């Protein structure tokens, strides 16, 4: 009964919501409890969940998803500049504009599949990135990045209040400032909603069709399905997710730069999804957690901190361990990430989720065997006692 509840959608959602909302509590012992990092977890979680809807379900590997992230950020900042510092219109506009971009790019790219699709999306991403740096400077403010300024019109805000604000205003949700923990909780609630939608998509007939496209597109076509509209819908949905993530980046820190659209940013979300486990619901989130944790915590470990951590070792050994480990943390954290990534792809192609699944099977088998043995032993014992009579 209990088990069934936790395996149902409602149970999953409840568990997930509790886990996300209590993140500040259970991430405290590992030193990851500060709002900035928590916001990143939630925002990139949304990004990766959206990416997983395309890549995990249909198998189409997009190498240009960061475009939508960048477009979302730019739109959100423009909404702050022109209309209002309220975050809701910014998020709405970002999702709409990112969706429009996704329709255009997806319509062209989905004409090809496999590596050709990857290269097409990459080409679009690099084009947008290069243009944001050069020709589109009036819109994107080039290398400096788009920022708020005190001369911004902010039509809606100024229409309702004539109070002169000192300095730059901050983003808000009807007066609640979107920085620090409130910002995190806002992102977390959106993450939970995003997760709910992706859960529904995974379980829906639409999701089944996407999975069918992944396993055999030709057969799917022969049975009379036109696969293109389904693919395009998946592409647009994941583009909208990325736009939402981009706007949240701007909400928590109102500036937008072109480097968010570079192919390395697209590559990062691919790494996150694979590391966690593509095609699973929670996998991408785990991947986000691992990579962002590495990026923020591992990179800040220096040799003093290491000496503190390893102070329980004997002196000579301590120095040795610290020298070895210091190559893998701090500036060299990407080395660890690269190694970890290779190990995961080599030994656990399904990512961390496959690791968890394998371990749980092993434990289950072990338990089953042990109870079997127990029965056998008791049976044998009773038999012996029977014989003895």
């Amino acid at each position, binding site marked *: 009964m209990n088990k069934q509840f936790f395996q149902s959608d409602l149970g999953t959602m409840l568990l997930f919501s509790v886990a996300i909302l209590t993140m500040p509590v259970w991430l405290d012992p590992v030193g990851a409890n500060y709002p900035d990092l928590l916001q990143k977890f939630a925002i990139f979680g949304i990004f990766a969940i959206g990416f997983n809807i395309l890549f995990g379900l249909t198998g189409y590997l997009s190498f240009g998803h960061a475009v939508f992230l960048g477009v979302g950020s730019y739109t959100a900042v423009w909404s702050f500049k022109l209309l209002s510092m309220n975050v809701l219109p910014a998020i709405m506009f970002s999702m709409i504009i990112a969706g429009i971009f996704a329709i255009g790019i997806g319509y062209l790219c989905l004409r090809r599949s496999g590596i050709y699709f990857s290269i097409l999306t990459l080409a679009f991403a690099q084009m947008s990135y290069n243009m944001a740096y*050069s020709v589109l400077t009036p819109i994107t403010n080039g290398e400096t990045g788009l920022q708020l300024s005190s001369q911004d019109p902010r039509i809606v805000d100024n229409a309702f209040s004539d109070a002169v604000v000192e300095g730059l205003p901050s983003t808000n949700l009807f007066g609640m400032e979107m920085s620090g923990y409130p910002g995190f909780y806002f992102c977390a609630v959106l993450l939970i909603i995003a997760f709910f939608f992706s859960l529904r998509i995974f379980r829906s007939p639409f999701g089944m069709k996407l999975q069918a496209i992944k396993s055999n597109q030709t057969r799917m076509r022969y049975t009379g399905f036109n696969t293109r509209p389904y693919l395009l819908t998946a592409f647009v949905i994941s583009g909208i997710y990325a736009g939402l993530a981009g706007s949240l980046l701007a909400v928590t820190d109102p500036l937008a730069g072109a480097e968010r659209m570079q192919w390395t940013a697209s590559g990062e979300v691919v790494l996150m999804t694979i590391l966690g486990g593509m095609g699973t619901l929670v996998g991408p989130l785990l991947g986000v957690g691992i990579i962002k944790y590495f990026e923020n915590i591992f990179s800040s470990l220096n040799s003093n901190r290491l000496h503190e951590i390893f102070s329980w070792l004997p002196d000579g050994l301590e120095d040795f361990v610290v020298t070895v480990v210091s190559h893998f943390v701090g500036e060299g954290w990407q080395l660890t990430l690269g190694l970890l990534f290779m190990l995961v792809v080599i030994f656990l192609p399904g990512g961390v989720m496959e690791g968890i699944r394998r371990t749980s099977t092993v434990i289950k088998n072990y338990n089953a065997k042990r109870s079997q043995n127990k029965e056998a032993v008791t049976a044998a014992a009773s038999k012996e006692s029977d014989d003895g009579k």
Partner: protein
Amino acid sequence: MDVFLLQLLNGLDKGAAYALIAFGLTLVFGTLGVVNFAHGALFMLGAFCAVTLQKILTISKKVKDESITFFDAYKETPYLEIWWGDTGAAIIDWVIPISIFLAIPIMLLIGLSMERGLIRHFYKRPHAEQILVTFGLAIVLQELIRAFFGANPIPVSAPEILSGSADIGYILGMGADYLTYPWWRIIYVLFSGAIILSVFAFLQFTTFGMVVRAGMHDRETVGLLGINVQRRFTIVFGMAAVVAGLAGAMYVPILPPDYHMGMDFLVLSFVVVVVGGMGSLGGAVAAGFLLGILQSFSSLNEIKNIIPGIDQIIIYLVAVVIILVRPRGLMGRKGVMED
């Protein structure tokens, strides 16, 4: 006319680098069927072979500077100069051409061990996993290089005699100082042409090459004929690594190498490979030069005035159009990587 020629030359030397990297990528893909994202890292390792050799050759000790008599002044003098005088200085000056001879065995070794140690286990895995594991390897390699050489570009200059410019206009009979171009870039274009031609000739005119070509076409049948295709393909991977390494070593005077130069070139050369057609060696070379030349022409002011910003996106724009119009790229074979 001179502007036209100049841009053509510019395009050729950029295209030569693209073509060399794309050539190696296609060689690996065509034979082993592996998409190697670490190929850019091999290019970078080649460049750092030259840097390492320069570091080794210029190991120096402090020597009293005799030309200054007012006080005790010391200057760093490489051991080579102390031992062999002018010959030593000349060796240091010619470090880049000499580094080729260092790069060949090192890159061959790296290539073979990479294939044996990692790539071999990924033949049967999906392309996505090959891309990911080699991408991880590329990150590891570039971080190792950063740990040893630091994050800043390390300039190494071309030999003194070749560091000037060639008077192309004079050679072509258009008058002196009409059109000049750096010697080293001309040499780079010729060098890459020579490498590409020699690999082609090797594949075309030797028994080994014949087996490799047959293996590219139908691996199973060649294997059934009792030929160890696997070993030959391993050697081909080594060759591709050497090509990438040489391209990198020779590129050092044009672009001071840093740890992420491989990644920068990788994306472009992948676009080149796909435009040329996956698995087609000729296509890769042609597309490399084509895109290099297009890029340099689009950076002309006359063209930039008509379409602003075109120089930034031309390569990707051409790639998009070609992939959409010709699904297999310029010269792609049928049935390669279409799903």
